[in-house]
């Protein structure tokens, strides 16, 4: 497998890799993986703290087992996390050293409040469940709320830098 492979279409600028909605990528330090315009979508960042190998997926939906089926790998939480783990392990990552962070899952419009629970919350619940089942500790999160987020995943440090409109930049 080639280095820094992911679903097709990700854009690269020097050591920056942009992951769009429904895409995922695995890379090593010192790359920076970015994901823009998260609303109800959730990005999961997996990181092997010893080998500094990281994987990030911009997940849209909680579960690939739906009657409307036929999703691509990184659109749904279950298939996306499995794919990230496989790719990271094929690059030498070791499961016991992998930790997880997640960002997103907002509810952007109050009119969605009638639909219970929203897709963002469903994504969060599903991802927590999958990480738990895989035995991967979720060490940090910035989830929910009513605002969009841009993130950068720095593979040299494992830090996630989060930007939101009208808010201070935060780091988890």
């Amino acid at each position, binding site marked *: 497998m080639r280095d820094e492979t992911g679903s097709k279409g990700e854009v690269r600028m020097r050591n920056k890799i942009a992951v769009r909605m429904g895409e995922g990528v695995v890379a090593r330090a010192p790359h920076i993986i970015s994901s823009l315009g998260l*609303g109800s979508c959730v990005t999961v960042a997996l990181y092997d703290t010893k080998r500094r190998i990281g994987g990030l997926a911009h997940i849209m939906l909680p579960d690939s087992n739906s009657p409307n089926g036929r999703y691509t790998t990184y659109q749904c939480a279950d298939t996306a996390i499995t794919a990230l783990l496989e790719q990271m392990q094929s690059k030498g990552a070791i499961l016991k050293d992998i930790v997880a962070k997640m960002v997103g899952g907002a509810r952007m419009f109050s*009119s969605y409040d009638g639909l219970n629970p929203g897709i963002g919350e469903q994504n969060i619940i599903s991802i927590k469940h999958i990480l738990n089942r895989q035995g991967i500790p979720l060490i940090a999160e910035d989830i929910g709320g009513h605002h969009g987020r841009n993130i950068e995943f720095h593979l040299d440090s494992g830090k996630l830098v989060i930007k939101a409109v009208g808010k201070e930049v935060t780091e988890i």
Partner: protein
Amino acid sequence: MNNKEKLLSEEQLDFLREMISIGAGNAATAFTQMLQCEVKVTIPALHILPAPQAPSIIGDPSLPVLCVRMGMVGDVAGELFFIIPDEQKTKLTHLVERATPGTKKKYTDVDLSVLTEVGNIIAGVYLTAIHDFCKLNIYHTVPTLAIDMIQSLLDESLATQSRQVQTLILIENEFIVDEHLIRTFFLMIPSMESVKTLVDSIDQARMALGEG
């Protein structure tokens, strides 16, 4: 991308353009009455496109936009968004001041409710135009407003409504008020099941008018 754009033939697109031109004309009339000054509208641009491209046509995906969301129910189900890019904000505030005299600051609650109402009117005129031409009864739900990045605002809808097909109808409108040109977008995201209903109705309407 090409096969998605061919979802509608050139003739069907022309028909859709005619519908939205009439809708835009009616919107200008409604705003003229609401704002008590002449509001003109240019011929709207129509884009039929797959989901990932919508945010980049509207503008920088990481800049905030003002967005009014409505659900679409009836013969065609889905979601509607009225979108004003951030760089239009100052012109818009000027426009809103006409409807809410005395307000000077950026967005007050009253401004926001006026802008929500603008979204409401836009949805109304386009759905009426579709009804008049295609005999489809489409209604919109109560509008709600949010200001954030376009991609974030649309992602729930793109994830749940359009799934695989992801056919978006994006109408670009330019309104002219007091020499200010205000660029706005109206986005229809029909559910997967509704796309066929919409296309079939366009064909029937064209045949009824002897264009088919």
